[in-house]
């Protein structure tokens, strides 16, 4: 079966904040209405709705079902939910469009990351037999990975601080970024460790956020956007859940996903990498062979605003917007999930 051309045609994100008093449904509803308004499509023309979120974050089983209230599901709709980042929901929607069952899909995600101890909650993504019962904390797992990288000499603490300084400075130009600061790597290195060898700036800032994206196929995409961001390749790969059985100093799943998505076929202008920790951005850049010509995370990335379960889809939104505006022609969007970059989804998009 020939692959259908599918593009992102619109995005909407709400400003990231800390301590939101809205419900998840109240967070989602405005971004869904926003993204629909941007393309002026009738709701009935949206053939598939796909949602990414995590029930453990709200502490309520099946709380994702309530999100259907934000859709306006009358007359009845076709929808699905992914217990994970919205970017994984986007992948499901892309597959749905490939099947020919619909031409237009709306993907959305939300994360009220600050309503609970996210470092502890995310343990539930780890291997439930050997790792989760120990409740090591995601920051601690990332710190182990960073330590292994430092010991192996694949990166330095100064390299990590450089990633943070660039992200915090780039965030000054992003109105919806939460943390932003005109700061140098030297200044950051003078700050204390939080989970050694990680400092506060090495860890993505947990925030509350929501976002939505509309995907469309072929002529439908051309009718909805001036310059759609065409998906040229998309691939999702997973490393073993056994943390001791994989290399901590490289990301083989990210490398395979990037190769299969065609990242190396031509230059990449902008790469939005979902790296909740500074050393992970370095591992990802290396796995994907991203060179000097690629601007990584001009939005500031997940380091400056990390709405868990929405931070990956936010990368897709940022990358697509740079194609819409013409500031980039060929872009890469990435999402990770699980401890220590266990899962990696890579998507390459181009403007016409």
């Amino acid at each position, binding site marked *: 079966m020939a692959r259908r051309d599918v593009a992102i045609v619109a995005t909407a994100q709400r400003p990231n904040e800390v*301590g*939101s*008093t*809205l*419900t*998840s*449904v*109240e967070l989602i*509803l405005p971004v*869904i*209405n926003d993204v629909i308004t941007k393309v002026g499509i009738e*709701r009935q023309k949206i053939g598939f709705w796909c949602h990414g979120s995590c029930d453990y974050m*709200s*502490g309520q089983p099946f709380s994702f079902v*309530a999100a*259907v*209230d*934000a*859709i*306006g*599901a*009358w007359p009845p709709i076709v929808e699905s939910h992914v217990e994970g980042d919205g970017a994984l929901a986007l992948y499901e929607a892309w597959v749905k469009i490939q099947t020919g069952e619909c031409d237009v899909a709306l993907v959305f995600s939300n994360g*009220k990351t*600050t*309503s*609970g*101890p996210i470092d*502890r*909650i995310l343990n539930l993504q780890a291997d439930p037999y050997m790792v989760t*019962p*120990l*409740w090591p904390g995601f920051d601690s797992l990332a710190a182990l990975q960073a330590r292994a990288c430092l010991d192996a000499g694949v990166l330095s603490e100064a390299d990590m601080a450089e990633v943070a300084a660039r992200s915090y400075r780039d965030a000054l130009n992003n109105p919806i970024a939460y943390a932003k600061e005109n700061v140098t790597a030297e200044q950051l290195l003078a700050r204390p460790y939080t989970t050694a060898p990680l400092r506060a700036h090495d860890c993505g800032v947990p925030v509350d956020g929501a976002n939505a994206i509309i995907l469309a196929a072929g002529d439908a995409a051309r009718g909805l956007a001036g310059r759609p961001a065409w998906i040229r390749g998309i691939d999702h790969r997973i490393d073993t859940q056994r943390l001791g059985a994989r290399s901590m100093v490289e990301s083989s799943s990210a490398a395979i996903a990037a190769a299969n998505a065609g990242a190396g076929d031509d230059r990449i202008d902008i790469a939005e990498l979902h790296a909740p920790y500074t050393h992970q951005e370095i591992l990802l850049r290396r796995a994907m062979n991203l060179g000097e010509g690629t601007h990584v995370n001009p939005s500031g990335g997940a380091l400056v605003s990390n709405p868990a379960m929405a931070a990956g889809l936010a990368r897709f939104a940022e990358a697509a917007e740079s194609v819409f505006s013409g500031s980039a022609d060929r872009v890469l969007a990435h999402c990770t999930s699980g401890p220590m970059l266990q899962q990696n989804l890579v998507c390459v998009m181009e403007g016409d």
Partner: protein
Amino acid sequence: MSEADGIMRLRQPISVTYNWSAGPNATSHLNGLLDGTLVGKRCPGCSLVYFPPRNGVCPKCARILGEDVVVGPRGTITTFCVVNVPFLGQKIKLPYVAAQILLDGADISMQHLIQECEATDVRIGMRVEPVWKDRSEWGPSLENITHFRPTGEPDRDMGVEAGAS
């Protein structure tokens, strides 16, 4: 045999504390319950009155709900179920009736218990009213109402044929 060889099971208790937000739209509903008033919300799109106001949005119109509307306290049974099966954690003596109750002025029903009558007497269209806990026990919760009981008013015609199952 070392001490570790004897470890067959490890207990690792864990707790997670959340800050749960009712959200601005459910707040007037919950505050209403604090003084015994049943407050719903009207959708600015379709005008339906939601009690409780769900997540603060109209699921039909995808709009944030609008004005507060005081509903009830009396209502009508729209459907019901006689519970005869014992289950773990059951607090109420069998048989009992769980019913959907459409409060006067509301457009969606809510589920609650029917007590103070025989389960066999409960029927669609029956008029009921809430029985409240002692005021000293009230909180921002529908649990302020222990159950509903028949008012004795004539049944409301719910468009269901007599004897229909």
